[in-house]
């Protein structure tokens, strides 16, 4: 993947937004729209693997998209287990792929 998956033209939707900020995904800058879910910004950048499972290390990504299933959990601003599909983007957010249950980070 890697290509931009944002919907840029649409027969019905009117308020198509352009990225106005960025987040840091595993150290890389990714364009994002303020207030959209972190998972949407990642998806737009072609990122579909959010974490690896604790026991077998299998990849997991967006499954329900509305905060029910917990598959899209990542480490966000140093906090592990954050559901990225219901967490709104703020400028400069630090998002990391979560390995297993993840780790708490000390962010300056």
């Amino acid at each position, binding site marked *: 993947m890697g290509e931009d*998956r944002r*919907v840029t033209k649409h*027969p019905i939707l009117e308020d198509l937004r352009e990225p106005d900020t960025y987040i840091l995904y595993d150290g890389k800058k990714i364009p994002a729209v303020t207030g*959209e879910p972190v998972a949407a910004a990642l998806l*737009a950048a072609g990122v579909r693997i959010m974490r690896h499972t604790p026991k077998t290390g299998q990849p*997991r990504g*967006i499954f*329900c998209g509305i905060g029910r299933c917990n598959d899209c959990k990542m480490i966000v601003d140093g906090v592990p287990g954050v559901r990225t599909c219901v967490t*709104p983007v703020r400028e400069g957010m630090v998002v990391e792929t979560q390995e297993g249950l993840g780790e708490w980070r000390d962010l300056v």
Partner: protein
Amino acid sequence: MRKVQLLIVGAGPAGLSAGIEAARAGVQVTIIDENLRPGGQLFKQIHKFFGSRVHNAGVRGFRIGEKLLQETRELGVEVLLGYPVYGIFPGGEVVYGSADGVKQLQAEKIILATGANENNLCFEGSVLPGVMTAGAAQTMINLHHVLPGQRVVMVGSGNVGLIVSYQLLQAGARVEAVVEAGPAIGGYGVHAGKLKRAGVPFYLSHTVQRAMGTTEVEAVELVELDHFKAIPGTEKIIEADTVCMAVGLTPMTELASLCGCELVESRGLGGLVPVHDHDMRTTNPNVYIAGDISGVEEASTAMEEGRLAGTAAAESLGYIPAKEAARRKEEIHGRLDLLRSGQFGARRAQAKIEIERSFAQIKRGGEVR
């Protein structure tokens, strides 16, 4: 503890309609929802609604959502967003989460409009990134304007599967297949027709056997079915990066169960539902339900049920005289009957009658079947 007259859990079409109806009668209403935006699934529904003019036919779902929100604002209904309700005790004590920790309130009457969960299927690779519910895909394209993938296989040809497939096309994705385990398309012909005209292939009597790929979906293996059993040797592989599952919904009844409402299994309505009477009242006399929690239907029926529950709750709080309430409820039932007519509706109408029968049985002191 904070006290409220009427607490409504869920700010979707049912909850908002219930709130508007009760607030119009003079009830002090609080609506609470775990999501940061109100509207439930309405703002994802960019297609035009069915039914007659009184049901907003021809109006797109998100426009109906905007209207409901405007009315709640004008009526001064309190809408608490970002607060998940963790539990409700049979006496109406409500426990919910917030940024400042767990909070409580005491509600005189409660309307549960919690909606439904999407069902899913288990198959090899069904947890690979790229496999998701149809609702997740719809949320991503219509609400957040991001494509979940470029080449999609849709599993399920009910109205959700058909409508989301078409919306994926509108957003610029390709739908490589609509897969249906049954021998015929499940949803309305008008939705299926749009997909057929766009050249989307339908695989009837087929299911997905495997999602293939090392770290993400790269292809999907389908297999033909004979009376829902796989026929060996009929496997076919379709290149795709996304699998969407539109295989039904199940009412979200946890809170109803917690506050002591009796539940009954209803196959026609998606699973366990709280037993309720003609006014949407459960076996806990202070708790009403509306929308998909009372049986999976559509947004139009959810709104009418919301109005019904809102009217009944306002009546029980003394804000609408019995005679006037009876007139209004009769009117709403007339519109509900229209929505529950026809090939698909008649089955739901019958299921609702059976649930009301269960309610009467419990009131007489009997057991539910």
